[in-house]
Structures are given as structure tokens and as C-alpha cells.
């Protein structure tokens, strides 16, 4: 059983590497004028068009309400890949050498880091949706009189003016989640066996 758990830990440590191949997240914008919706894939090291020129066209839409252009690169594109590589190496070391309890510690570490990542993503989204050019062409206010923001949802679907925005994790995020689950299941398996003994 310990062997099985170790294999799970190995797999768990390696799975997040798929983030270098598959996107983490996708934001899709639907509107009547876009029979093919605009879409942006978020990778740990890049923003990419869902269809050719989508980001350029999202920027063009957004400049009307004073949103900034989606940057070519953000610091996270360096930090996130490094984080993944470090935690993978750590995970592999744990799988190779460490006591099963470390599976749980790695799992907790990954939970913390992923939450931090998501929070960072939320902050960026919030800034992107609220830090508007004071010379914005169109200014909208909420019913309470405050300036309307255009923050896309962190997770789920939301109507923003004429657009319906969807924000959902993609294969990369699922790989990360599965890897984390592997480590946790590995931990549970050993713990269960230990209890029986």
C-alpha cells in the first residue's frame, strides 16, 4: 500500500507540470455581435487568443469603458512557473524519500499556494475591472451611484453590459487539482493502513 501511495505522490508531483502544456483558465465573452465569442486562455506563463486576434479585439472593446489593455506579460508569468517547478521538485523528493505525512504537508502547501495564486488572479481581475481611465469614453454607474466596474468573475458566469462573461478552469487547473488530490489520497491510504495495523 505504501508503494501505491508513493506512486500516487509521484504522479501528484508530476501532474502540475501539465500546466506548461494546457491552459489554467479561460475567460469567454459572449455578445450578440460576436457569434463566435471572444475568448482568452490563461496559461501560467502566457495569455493566448481562443481564436486569432481575440485579445486585440477584447482590448478594443474594453477601451470604450476605460479598461487597460491586457498586458503582454505580467510578473506572475515568471513567478508561477518557478513555483510549479519548485513544488514539483519538492513533491518528487517527498515521494522519493519522505515519510507519508509529508504528502499531507505538500498537499497543504499546494492548497496555500493555489489559493494565493487565485487571490492574486482575483486582485488582478479586480484591478483590471476597476482601475479605469478617468477619460474613459463611456462611464457607467451602479444603481447606488458608484462607478460601475467590469471585473470578470473569478469562477462562473456574469453579465457585464452587453457581454456575458464566463470564467472557468481548464485542463491545466484540473491537472493541478488532480495532482493535489493524488498526494492527499496517498496520505489517506497510508494513514488508513497504519490505523488498521
Amino acid at each position: 500500500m505504501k508503494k501505491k501511495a508513493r506512486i500516487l505522490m509521484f504522479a501528484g508531483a508530476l501532474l502540475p507540470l501539465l500546466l506548461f502544456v494546457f491552459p489554467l483558465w479561460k475567460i469567454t465573452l459572449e455578445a450578440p455581435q460576436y457569434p463566435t465569442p471572444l475568448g482568452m486562455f490563461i496559461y501560467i506563463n502566457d495569455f493566448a487568443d481562443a481564436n486569432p486576434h481575440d485579445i486585440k479585439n477584447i482590448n478594443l472593446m474594453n477601451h470604450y469603458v476605460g479598461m487597460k489593455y491586457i498586458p503582454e506579460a505580467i510578473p506572475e508569468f515568471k513567478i508561477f512557473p518557478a513555483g510549479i517547478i519548485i513544488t514539483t521538485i519538492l513533491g518528487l523528493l517527498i515521494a522519493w524519500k519522505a515519510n507519508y505525512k509529508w504528502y499531507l504537508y505538500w498537499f497543504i502547501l499546494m492548497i496555500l499556494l493555489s489559493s494565493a495564486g487565485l487571490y492574486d488572479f482575483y486582485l488582478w481581475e479586480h484591478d483590471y475591472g476597476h482601475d479605469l481611465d478617468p477619460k474613459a469614453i463611456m462611464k457607467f454607474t451602479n444603481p447606488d451611484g458608484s462607478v460601475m466596474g467590469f471585473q470578470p468573475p473569478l469562477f462562473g458566469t456574469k453579465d457585464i453590459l452587453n457581454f456575458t462573461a464566463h470564467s472557468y478552469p481548464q485542463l491545466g487547473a484540473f491537472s493541478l487539482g488532480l495532482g493535489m488530490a493524488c498526494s492527499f489520497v496517498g496520505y489517506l491510504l497510508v494513514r488508513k493502513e497504519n490505523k488498521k495495523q
Partner: protein
Amino acid sequence: MNKFRLVMIATLVATFLFVGCNQQGKDSSGALASSAAEKVYVAPGEHDDFYAFISGGFSGQLSVYGLPSGRLFKVIPVFSQDAEKAWGYNEETKPMLNTSHGFVPWDDSHHPDISQTNGELDGRFVFINGNNTPRIAKIDLSVFETTEIIEIPNSAGNHSSAFVTENTEYVVAGTRFSVPIPQRDMPINEYKGNFQGSLSFISVDPEDGGMDLSFQILMPGFDYDLAHPGRGASHGWMFFSTYNSEESHSLMEVNASQNDKDFIAAVNWKKAEEYINEGKFKTMPANYAHNVYDEETHTATSTMKKEVRVLDASELPGLVYLLPTPKSPHGCDVNPTGEYIVGNGKLSSDLTVHSFAKMIDAIESEKFDGEAYGIPILSFEDVLAGTVKQAGLGPLHTEFDGQGNGYTTFFISSEVVKWKVGTWEVVDRQPCYYSVGHLMIPGGNSRKPYGKYVVAMNKITKDRYLPTGPEVTQSAQLYDISGEKMELLLDFPTVGEPHYAAGIPADLIKERSKKIYSLEENKHKYATTSDANVRVERNGNEVHIYMTMIRSHFNPDNIEGIKVGDKVYFHVTNLEQDYDVPHGVSMIGANTSELLIMPGQTETFVWEPKQVGVWPFYCTDFCSALHQEMQGYVRVSPANSDLELSWSLGED
């Protein structure tokens, strides 16, 4: 008395009943009409099943319709200037209308034909002829734009054109009016024996579609009216109808209608290729324009070509045979198997159908019935497959449905007649409103017709639509031909006079239809593909403005330092890379059209300011919510001003 009353009442009731029945009959045609409405109804947002490319006749253009709805999508400018799209107005497309006679801003476009592979429509290109100043144009169906025009030398009235062979080896163009070849100063009444016709074979590059006038066949001085290619067994042959075998030159309506039979000229173009390869051609000096639009430079170039290879049909045996065909045949149509060649003798009530197999037999057994200028004439009886008898008055054109039926238009009796190929019996007839010319079944002149609809294109409309003064709309009519009987479904107006048309299933084209031009591939000499390269340059009194446009501004939008007497080139690049976001631009007082620029494209117009002042320009296509703000100013100073050029965007 009472009895009499009773009889009267009974009679009245009977009359009412009769009338009632009659009216019911009319009502039931109303019910039919409503089912016809369902058949042509394409719900909002849905697509039509077929594209129909309908020639614009004297408009010089080619219009694109959907079938069965009859909705007009686009008028593709071909031979005529089109201010809406700047065709022939902007610097990029002016060379497309260049000819050996200089810039010709108009033509008469007649017969579109879609490129074929193995005798089936492949949807790559449409070819169409300019009748007046002989030209052949190629429209690229990935962009629905005219991308090549080649002028035809030694030709006049380029009417038996532009028909493609089974693998688009050639687009064929025959001359309707015979002329002195080469052109020279001579008395008109010495026409007979001196004037000649020419049949031109324009090769089409299988890779890039590039056209080249490969060779011409010199023919007797008849009028070469229409043509269609052989297919299947008859692949390698081209058939041309002729009239005026009398070789008259005046009061033609009488003098060219004297012979009981004219000819269908069967041209063996495979043989012609052999003669070319054997070097049996003459190279004639010529002067004709070859105009090519490059999709990457968004610019056309015009090249004058100086010679043409010519084969003389009178001297080269086996090249051409003449099939006697009654009554000045107009349309010359070949059925899907390639066995039957229909001669639509326009002064007749019968249709003559020739057999290709019998023609080959007669040629092989050398059963000739005389000759014309050294070209063998076959005997009428030897090549006749059958006659569709008393089918109507004035047959003009025939198409086929792929189920063994022919459909022929009759101009004088104003109807479409359906008949069976092989038994030559008439199956059905339906009236046209009025005086139908060509008809079109999608793929109806290929190996694989899509026999669901026939479009009849009429010459006269009279009272069919709301009147619009003396000049009323041109019109086409759509019939359902999926059943035994034809059913009239729809009238729809057309642009210019529709001559021939070409139809094709939408699926063969729509997926390949380009959405934008890639900015990265824009190789226009004056392109400005990023805002960093925006600038204004002066060279003497020539000023070049390298301008960009994107929602919702021009860059630059303030320009100073222009002077009266300058020649100002606006080279404007649309930086958009989104589907259906064109921008337009026009300058007050510019002596030219607007530009309508597709995403990723660069176009140029010239403005020669004549008055001092500050003059605005603006976007002419409602592009965005801020379209009305998409505008700019040019300051024009006196000719002797020493104000330096300056330009800006968003500066106070």
C-alpha cells in the same frame, strides 16, 4: 309561375356554385402560393442552400444571391467602376480596368462560369466575360473579389465566353463580331472572306489560378454566339454556336437570317495543343492588357502583352468540324454525360440535338458534306441525335437536372420547357414573366447538376413589380424542379440585365470565405501596420500620408503643412483584425470615391486641395459606437506657405 321562379333560383344557385367552385379553384392556387412561400423562406439568421452568381449585363458587374430566398448579398465589381467599393477609383484597383484602349470604366458582363475539377464545380473561381471591350475576369471565391482581368486581342463582342473546360484547363472566349485580323483600314463591304473570328483559349494555372492567353484559333467570319465544353467522352472538345454564316455586314436581322442552317463549330482543343506543341502556330503581334490584383500587396498591376500564338482552322486538319444546325442557333449546351450537344435554333420552334458519338463516327468515316474555308462540314443527318419538336417558339438556352431532363427557355413564347433527354418528348412547360433569356440550374452545365431549382432570367418585366418610371427592375424567377412538374416559387429583382448565371451549393464555398486580411501578410508598398510608423512625407508637391484606422480614430487625425496645389496621397491601413469591421474614409472635395477598407487592408486615394482652409475627413462606414467621432482635419495653407508638415493624434 312558381315553377319558373324555382327554376330561376336553381339556375342562380347553380351559377353561384359554379362561380364559387371557380373561386375555390383560385383560392387553392393561393394555398399553393403559400406552400411556395414556405419553400423560399429562409428564416432570419439561417443560410441559403445555394449561391447564385448572376451576371449584371450592362452594369458590368456580378451579383451574388442566395437560393431559394433570392436575397442579394453582394455586387462584385468587375468591369465597371464602383464608387461604393472604390473599384477603379482607388490607386490600387485602377490598373484592373486598363486595356489596350486605355482605361475603360465599363463593360457588359454576360456569362459567369464556376471553375471545375473532373467536370464538377469546385467553387474556387468564377470567370466572366466583358462583351464590349473583350476581356475575361476571374473572381476569387475566397474573397469574392475580382483578382485578374485579361484582355482578348483579335476579338470583338466577346460573347461566346467565359466557359471553362472540365478541369479548368482553359477558359474559352469566342468572338461574336468578326473583324479584320489583324485590324486594318478596309471597306466594310469587303467583309466576306476577309473578316475573321477568333476563339481564344486562356489557360488557368492549376496552382494559383493565374490566367494566360495560350492560343487563338482563327475562324471564318461568322458570329460565334455561345459555347460549352465537352465532358466525359467529349472532354477535349469545345462547342460553339454560330450565326451569320451568310457573312453579311449590314441589316443583319434580315441578312444574317437567310441560311436555313448555320453551324455548331466543334473544336478539338486537345488537337490544338498537339499543333501548338508541334510548333504549327504563328506568332502574331498583338497588344493586350493583363491585369492582376495581388492579395498581399492589395494592389493591381497591368502589363501589356505583345504577341499571341495563332492556329488557323482553315489550314490545320482535324482542328474544327462544322455541325449544321437550323435557324441561327443561340445557346450551345452539353448534357451531363457529354454525349448530347443542344443547338437552340432561336428562329425555330424545334430544338436540335447532336450526338457526340455520331459526330466522331462521321469524322472517322470522313463523311463530309462540303467545307467552309477548308473546315469540313458534317452532314446534318449523320450527327443528329434527335429533335425536340414543336417545343415552343424561339429556343435560347438549355440546362440539365442530372435526372435525364433538359430545360429549355423559349424567348418568344416566354416559357421554360422540360423535356426528356433521349426520347425528346416534352414533359412540362411553365410560363415566364416575360421573355426569358438564360436559365440556370446549379451545376446545370457540368457533370453533376444539383437539380433542385432552375432560375429563369427574364428580358422584360413590365407589370411584375411596383412601377419605377419608364425603367423598371430586371428580374429573375425561381422554379422548383424537384418534382415531375415545375413549380414557380419566386420572382426576385436583379442588378442590371441578367444574362447567364452560375449556381453552386453553399457548402462548397462558405467555409473557405475569408474573414479578414492578415496585417502580418500586408505587403502593400505604403502599408502602415503599426501606429509607430504613422507619418507624413513630402516629395516636391507630392505628399504621402501613412495613416491607420482602428475603432474609433484615424492616426494621424490632425495634419498641417499641406498646401494648395499639392497632390496628397492618403494611404490608409485598417488595423482591425476582427470580422466585419471595415472602415471607410473620404475627404471633402476629393475628386474621387470613398475608400472602403477591410480589416488588414491598405487602400489609397488622391486628394488635390484647391482651396485654403481646414478641411475634414471622416469614416464613411458606421463602424462602432464612436463612429461619429471618427473624423479628422487637414489644414491647407497657400501654395507659397512655408509651414512645415506636422501631424498628430490626441495632442492638445
